[in-house]
């Protein structure tokens, strides 16, 4: 075989290898225009990317990125590594690690840069999940310790009451025990919901019935806290396909948040929590949970559905609203929030009336 045939074969082999690599490879000129891109790059960003700037293809931007490994490589002729977030043509955002290396001409000047982008989205997601898991274990251990101490205290009071045949004292102790059992039940249920994606178990139910039954679970508790819990349920809202357990958990978390916000609020003497079921429009219905507690400021609103964000100090895990968001998402619903500091908050969850066509089961 001749030398030219050999070179041709080598070129083809290298090209096949570069095209087969599961990462983006491109060569850029000093103006950041793309001179070459591998098959993977072209299949995700289209064929019309040659001589187009890297930042417009990868970021959809008209100006250069503030941090650019290629620019650094052109400057100091060294390899640079950075983390980048890019946008695919279908709008998907991906986290990447970018490596840039110089390509020299015969006299040692950087003629072009080769840039390699590796998708690290999955690794980053795993990293975030592990961080979350660590935080969750620390936080939950602290909460569970507090609850266990509460249970021990309650049991001690009950025991003392029995010893002294003082039924009133035993009753007080029993109330403490019950309160802590409720707390630990709530935490456990939220952990179960937040631990993994749970497929909704869809049944044909009346949203009003689900709200009534959930409200009844809090009737005694709200009256003990001195808060009026009012149910305003439109009986005309028809049966729909929902996961009643999930929806009850969602409402329960919202009601419990409102009750606790009311209890914490000392600016008002009388507190109310409304639970509503009504039509939203002709094709949707809504659940609303509204309170007249202290409302939320802008920072709280921003972090509302983030895992482990709580305004309740030691008495909150920050899992409640995250679980609400997850249940709403699994039912393809939408959450509206209205709030005003000093006035109260309203959470509105909108669902479709006819779920027949939804891919829920």
């Amino acid at each position: 075989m001749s030398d030219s045939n050999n070179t041709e074969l080598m070129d083809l082999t290298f090209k096949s290898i570069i095209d087969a690599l599961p990462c983006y490879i491109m060569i850029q000129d000093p103006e950041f225009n793309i001179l070459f891109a591998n098959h993977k790059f072209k299949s995700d960003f289209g064929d019309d990317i040659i001589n187009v700037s890297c930042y417009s293809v990868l970021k959809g931007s008209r100006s250069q990125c503030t941090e650019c490994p290629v620019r650094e490589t052109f400057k100091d002729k060294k390899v640079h590594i950075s983390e980048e977030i890019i946008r695919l043509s279908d709008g998907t955002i991906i986290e990447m690690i970018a490596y840039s290396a110089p390509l020299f001409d015969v006299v040692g000047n950087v003629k072009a840069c080769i840039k390699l982008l590796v998708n690290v989205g999955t690794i980053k997601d795993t990293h975030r999940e592990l961080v979350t898991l660590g935080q969750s274990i620390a936080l939950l251990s602290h909460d569970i310790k507090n609850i266990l101490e509460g249970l021990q205290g309650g049991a001690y009071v009950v025991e003392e009451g029995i010893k002294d045949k003082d039924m009133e004292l035993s009753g007080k102790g029993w109330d403490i025990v019950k309160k802590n059992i409720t707390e630990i039940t709530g935490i456990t249920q939220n952990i179960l919901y937040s631990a993994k994606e749970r497929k909704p178990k869809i049944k044909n139910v009346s949203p009003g019935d689900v709200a009534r039954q959930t409200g009844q679970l809090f009737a005694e508790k709200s009256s003990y806290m001195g808060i009026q819990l009012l149910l305003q349920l439109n009986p005309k809202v028809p049966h729909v396909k929902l996961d009643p357990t999930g929806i009850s958990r969602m409402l329960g978390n919202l009601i419990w948040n409102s009750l606790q916000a009311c209890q914490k609020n000392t600016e008002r003497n009388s507190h109310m929590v409304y639970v509503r079921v009504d039509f939203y429009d002709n094709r949707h219905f809504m659940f609303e949970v509204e309170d007249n507690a202290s409302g939320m400021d802008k920072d709280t609103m921003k972090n509302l559905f983030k895992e482990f964000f709580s305004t309740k100090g030691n008495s909150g895990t920050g899992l409640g609203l995250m679980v609400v968001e997850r249940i709403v998402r699994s039912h393809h619903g939408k959450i509206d929030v209205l709030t005003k500091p000093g006035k109260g908050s309203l959470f509105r969850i909108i669902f479709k009336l006819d779920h027949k066509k939804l891919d829920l089961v």
Partner: protein
Amino acid sequence: MVSQLKYQNILLCTDYSKDAEAAFIHAFDQANKYGAKLHIMNVIPSVNPCGVDIFKKPLSKSEIKKESDKIDENHRIQELGALKKVYHERCGHTIDHEFIIKVGSPDVEIIMYSEKNDIEMIILGTGGHHETKRRTYVKTAANVSKYANCQVISIGSPKQ
């Protein structure tokens, strides 16, 4: 000494009902009186508020969202034309004004817009259309009055 009120941005929310007409007359007077800019807004409910199930053919979640947004955008442009048709001539050159169409829950959109645009006064009709004509059952006037961070005036049309 009593300090004089000064408004620079007034928001009129309309659903073209009789109450909204009464609200417009009041909002126009207020904007004229204070030399304020009048923001004239109509919130239209999303064609598909939950972002699902608008087509019979199976689409991916992101495709459905995109199609839904496209429909909302077309709807928004049509509604903007309708809003201008009703109010543009009436405002004329007398007052500085702007037309806004938002898609979503009316109470949420009104409050978000008012916060982002330094609105000092919101004027809206008390009742709007009768339930059978309304496209959303959200209690807009009550919620805006309660949750807005500025003055809110809700106006009912005088009895005929």
